[in-house]
């Protein structure tokens, strides 16, 4: 029997799934790797460790679950988190660690560029917001502050390109992941010369561009042997985690959007046209030719609630954050919708869409003498989801959204999913496939093999059933509090600046 393997190089871990051709999951395994914060604003990962972890997990999955059942691996399809940068020398050896999406070292460069006409133009042309996350800014930072690494760099890769090069020997990047670098013109699908000039590099410093279905070549013989794979196993580049999650959630076509909330979160739509916003609040990434994933990301998802749980939850046993969260949510459900007037701004990690303010801070507002601990719990969850709604609401200025598909460990907690339905006042589906990113990768692989004629056809096969229906009267209450939430977020802008600049001095 044939199977498809998907490899997701995520923020904290590699997740590998094996699918039967009908989309059923045969098995999945994960292996985590750490993120190092060696200085404030730095977020780095060890490329060798990521590679070894990926190999180790892949090998375990194959020898324990795939080979014993005599599956033939037809395709291995990749996905990875966006925006990573890894400099390598002319031997292919990494020059230092990979810089991940959450790295903020280029904040000065980003702010300068964002406030210039070049910045506005580059956001339009490349689809990637001008932000420290983008490889455009990171490479410029290396040029300005790490001259010797910049001079020694043979190529600037993404983590995925590095790992695929290790496996096959080829340097390649798919249009999709490339469209999140801030260096690609999303209309011509070529590296954008103005962006390259800003970063101080030429085209030869970047890997070859290719479609998401592209195969960069066979596995090196040594890996075929050690993994027990045949030369006929096809490697395909695949896409980014975000685009795959949108594809795997089945939101292709008019009137649908997907909400992902893990540690961070995003609201996304898929369409044939780029989403133009004169206030530049959205990203536009390519999924495949003439198909764009547009939306807004938030920094403050499940991670913020985990923070809350660690500070204020009751831990029965050391490190048992999951059961602590469960108990908190049970408590939150005893509080009325709207938390009796307690509001929470969740910007603990600064914020991206829609306010795009790295200096934004968290805050509880509206506190009165009758509020108890449980109000804080519910207000925290409501605040995180109001932020998601504020992205969705700005998206609705451009696209009509009639139903939502929700995924990610935080958003798919039933209490949170119902709250999303109520706040948005729209029916919500939980994806049948627990891991939308991997399922999206499966659809890419299955399309490549010819099971589907196109990604569109593949995505249409995902049934969206309305499992959570909105409660009208709850929506009315949420909406009124949301209006205050929205005004607070805007009105506090000056105070966010004030406290950030104060903290820089002391």
């Amino acid at each position, binding site marked *: 029997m044939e199977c498809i393997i998907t490899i997701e190089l995520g923020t904290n871990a590699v997740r590998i799934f094996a699918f039967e051709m009908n989309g059923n999951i045969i098995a999945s395994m994960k292996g985590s790797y750490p993120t190092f914060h060696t200085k404030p604003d730095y977020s780095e990962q060890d490329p060798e*460790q990521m590679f070894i972890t990926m190999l180790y997990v892949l090998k375990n999955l194959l020898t324990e679950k795939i080979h014993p059942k005599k599956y033939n691996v037809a395709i291995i399809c990749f996905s990875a988190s966006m925006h990573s940068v890894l400099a390598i020398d002319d031997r292919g*050896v990494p020059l230092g660690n990979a810089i991940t999406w959450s790295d903020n070292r280029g904040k000065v460069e980003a702010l300068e560029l964002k406030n210039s006409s070049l910045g506005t133009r580059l956001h339009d042309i490349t689809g990637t917001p001008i932000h420290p996350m983008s490889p455009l800014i990171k490479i410029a930072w290396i040029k300005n502050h790490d001259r010797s690494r910049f001079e020694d760099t043979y190529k600037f890769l993404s983590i995925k390109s590095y790992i695929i090069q290790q496996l096959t020997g080829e340097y390649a990047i798919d249009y999709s992941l490339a469209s999140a670098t801030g260096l690609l013109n999303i209309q011509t699908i070529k590296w954008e010369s103005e962006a390259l000039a800003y970063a101080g590099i030429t085209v030869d410093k970047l890997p070859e561009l290719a479609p998401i279905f592209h195969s960069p070549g066979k596995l090196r013989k040594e890996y075929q042997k*050690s993994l027990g794979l045949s030369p006929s196993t096809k490697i395909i580049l695949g896409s980014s985690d975000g685009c795959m999650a949108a594809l795997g959630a089945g939101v292709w076509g008019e009137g649908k959007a997907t909400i992902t909330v893990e540690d961070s979160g995003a609201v996304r739509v898929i369409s044939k046209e780029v989403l133009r916003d004169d206030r530049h609040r959205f990203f536009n990434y390519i999924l495949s030719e003439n198909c764009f994933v547009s939306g807004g990301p938030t920094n403050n998802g499940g991670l913020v609630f985990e923070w809350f749980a*660690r500070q204020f939850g009751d831990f029965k046993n050391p*490190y048992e954050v999951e059961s602590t969260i469960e108990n908190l949510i049970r408590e939150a459900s005893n509080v009325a919708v709207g938390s009796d007037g307690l509001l929470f701004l969740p910007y603990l990690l600064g914020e991206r869409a829609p306010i795009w303010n790295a200096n934004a801070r968290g805050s509880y507002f509206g506190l009165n003498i009758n509020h108890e601990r449980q109000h804080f719990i519910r207000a925290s969850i409501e605040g995180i989801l109001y932020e998601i709604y504020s992205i969705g609401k700005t998206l609705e200025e451009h696209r009509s959204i009639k139903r939502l598909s929700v995924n990610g460990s935080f958003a798919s907690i039933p209490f949170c999913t119902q709250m999303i339905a109520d706040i948005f006042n729209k029916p919500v589906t939980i994806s049948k496939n627990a891991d939308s990113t991997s399922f999206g990768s499966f659809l890419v692989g299955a399309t490549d093999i010819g099971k589907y004629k196109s990604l569109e056809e593949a995505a249409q096969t995902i049934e969206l059933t309305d499992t959570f229906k909105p409660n009208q009267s709850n929506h009315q209450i949420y909406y009124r509090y949301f209006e205050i939430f929205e005004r607070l977020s805007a009105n506090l802008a000056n105070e966010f600046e004030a406290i950030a600049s104060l903290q820089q001095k002391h």
Partner: protein
Amino acid sequence: MNQFIFQQGQAKELHVFPHILEFALKKINNTQLNSLNPTAAECVRMYFVHDGKFEWIINGNKFNLYPGDLAIVLPGQIFGGENGILNIGTLIWLNLKVESTESGRILLGSWSDLSESESITISKILLFNSAPILIKLRDRTTLFQNIKNELTSQEIGYTTRINHLLDELFITIARQITRQNNSQRDFPQTFLKLEQTLRQNLAHQWTVEEMAALTGLGATAFNEKVKNYTGFSPLNYLINIRISEAIKLLDRPEENVTGIALTTGFYSSQHFSTTFKKLTGYTPSEFRKRNLPRKQ
């Protein structure tokens, strides 16, 4: 408790405890200059605050100690009062002779009933700990009080009991240090700290017990947490780090393979080679040849 002082060589009670160099309780009623100048010693020194507030400098860092707090000063570390002054209050101290090995390990000696691996783990916890202060050590007065009572009454079995009490003191200290250093709420954070410790000491033959102790968990809970969080057993996770570090070193032409094997914690180049090949499909030297300069 009344004041007392036992000193090795002077107090006959300590004849059967050659490892106890000094054990005392003192009430300090006035401050004097140069009453506690910075010194280093060969022994482990413990200072327990019974009452009062003490301002001390240990290893260059300043600490304020309050009743119930305990400071542990390891061999070679410099300890003294701020401005050389011993503050007003009541203090219990205990100086214990230990053997320090070259690798900085502390061996308690034959009086201790701790197994070798337990005592290695405890010494690692003490050594890796940058802030040698235990806050609010619960009921420790009782522990010191018991040692004192056994020492003066000399009832049957008192030597064994005192040595046991000393072992218990070390166990309590080690457990409390790991709990104090890890919030017990944020496993990713604790695990990251552990990973950094492992990477700094990759050549060491880590056991699961040692790793677990550094996170403040028992071996069983630790195993389960690591497996859940990383997808690997602790020892397999360690192999991951060893191989990733080895790949970095292989990319430097000046390093030899045996040297790399030993620095990354493999016990021989053979062991390194087999593990490496099993995981990567290449032997270390094949892997090294793979990365040749590109023709530009």
